């Protein structure tokens, strides 16, 4: 995927590796209770996935990385705040690890988890 020329060859980073970074960053974000597969038709029961490549899509177009994240958020939190914090956190962690700019992080809220209050 991304490569820099080095004296002795090149370094490539796979979309899956980037997805793993994004996955862990997203799961650390407050308000996110899980990631869900992008392929699920909306309306079908949300299944929280454990594999980063299912909840995260990494696109690499020439020199631009864009990341799509499909999340389930805790009911009762302010969705826009949580989503923007996911956006910031993922961008920060991926850029820090890769040393490359991330063009876009799209957060798709696929569902809410309602927890028992008592």
């Amino acid at each position, binding site marked *: 995927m991304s490569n820099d020329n080095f004296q002795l060859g090149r370094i490539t980073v796979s979309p899956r590796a980037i997805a793993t970074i994004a996955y862990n960053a997203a799961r650390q974000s*407050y*308000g996110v209770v899980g990631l869900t597969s992008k392929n699920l038709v909306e309306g079908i029961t949300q299944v929280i996935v454990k594999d980063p490549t299912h909840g995260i899509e990494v696109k690499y177009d020439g020199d631009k990385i864009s990341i799509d994240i499909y999340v389930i958020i805790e009911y009762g939190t*302010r969705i826009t*705040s949580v989503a923007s*914090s996911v956006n910031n*956190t993922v961008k920060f962690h991926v850029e820090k690890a890769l040393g490359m700019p991330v063009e876009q992080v799209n957060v798709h809220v696929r569902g809410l988890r309602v927890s028992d*209050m008592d």
Partner: protein
Amino acid sequence: MDAPENEKPEPEPEPRYPMQKYPIDGQVFKSLVDAGLTWLRTNQQTVNSLNVFPVPDGDTGTNMVLTMQAACEEIVNSPEHNIGRISQKVAHGALMGARGNSGVILSQLWRGFAHALDNFEFLEGRSFVNALHHGRNTAYRGVVRPVEGTILTVAKDIAAEAERSIVDTQDPYELLERIVSAADKSVSRTPELLSVLKDAGVVDAGGKGLFFILEGMLRYVMGLPLDVNIASIQPLSAMKLENAFDSIEPGQDYEVVVDFHPHDELNFPQFYEELQQIGTSIQIGEGDGIYRMHIHVASENLYAPIEYSKSLGVVTKAAIENLHAQMEQVDHDRSATIQFTTIEPGQIATVAVAPGLGIARVFASLGVSAIVEGGQTMNPSTQEILNAFENFPTDYVFILPNNKNIILAAQAAAQLTVKHVTVIPSRTIPQGMAAMLRLIPTGHPEEVAADMNSVLNDVETGEITTATRSVEIDGVNVTQGQIISLLNGKLVLAAEDLSTATLGLLEKAHADQYELITLFYGLEVSRMEVDSIADSIRKEYPRQEIEVQEGGQPHYQFIISIE
């Protein structure tokens, strides 16, 4: 009562503050929440300064204030006396106004807190404990992998402290006092739980914010002021003293920093109060028994902080700095920084060689990604040029040497790297600038290079300098010390003064047939002289646009671009 040994009636303890007599209903609670917000706002900058993650999420203190503010706005006009209903409103407001991570967590704490008080009229000991417990649980549910050493930990610790304290007292005010001190302890433990905090020498910002909210409530109960920021002692490593200000207020002439060992334990509130008599912007740090005091004072109080510290202990170090001079330096540094264009992989990055700061800044504004300092009589080495672009995250680099003597060094640098380097052979500064205008960073490198090359000769370059020796070149007789004009590198005239040389040059260049004349004035010429020459040029060439820019180049009074 299920514990018979406790049946013996205990004497009612004396209330320690007048408020303690009142049960906490909706209206009292409203005042408490408001006090929490006020105190948080007073300490907003302290919380902001604890941010360690450079995530562009705004500052923690500001986010928490905005969240609490939304909560307060929800109840400010409410006559509600029922604690359950008023805390529902608080939770609703906090939810709607939640900003940033810490704000969202805070709103969850409120949500759980309110939920537990649903059917209650007053906040009493047991229901208080229960509400804190629920707040904690609700907050923890919002995250898959809770990170300890954050606001969550502080919420957990205060819930636990409340649980312990309820055994001793049913009084909600007493409980508040205990949880404030538990929050304080919990905040100071956060660096042990989270290494990034420890590395940065700070405590968790969100946790500290929660502490201020609770402490604000307690201060209100105790009748203490909420709008005066009490400096707290911070670890020495966390003290940020450099350029921590944007403008100087009256009475701030000098910055004094004193390190001292107190003879006896420091009476902190008294110490702080005394310092407030002396000056402003007080910061106090502590480490290994040494206290560092930072204060801004007026000239007449210059030595007061040192004298005062001497009365308390042994002064080990003192430093005084003139704030006005410091401010000038800050202004200077700020204006001296150049914003370069960031390069993305695959794009074309450009490096320009520039002889002065002003010219470098113009190149930066045209989109170059690095500057190599150099020009006539100060040619940069191949290595210097190489260093400028070796770390770019792209493979395509253009170099603008902007001087005929530097083209070779640039070409040598191109040979020494694995990147695809193209030297655009600009022989003068104006040529380099003309070429920059054609740069398309995302374009095809070969096409862009060809386009940039094609415009090099569209611009006429004039240079005005002082002759270093007597000579005759190209039919022009020059005496040492005369002002000489070069047009596109060729000597065209020699004159006794700058104005004549400049106007003569423009005439030779047929400036009346061009549109724009830009003067880059050098280090050795005064702005006043520049302005008067620019005025005479404007008189002579009324139909041309005349621009004057600070070039900052040595040796050349003017570099002139005619296009």
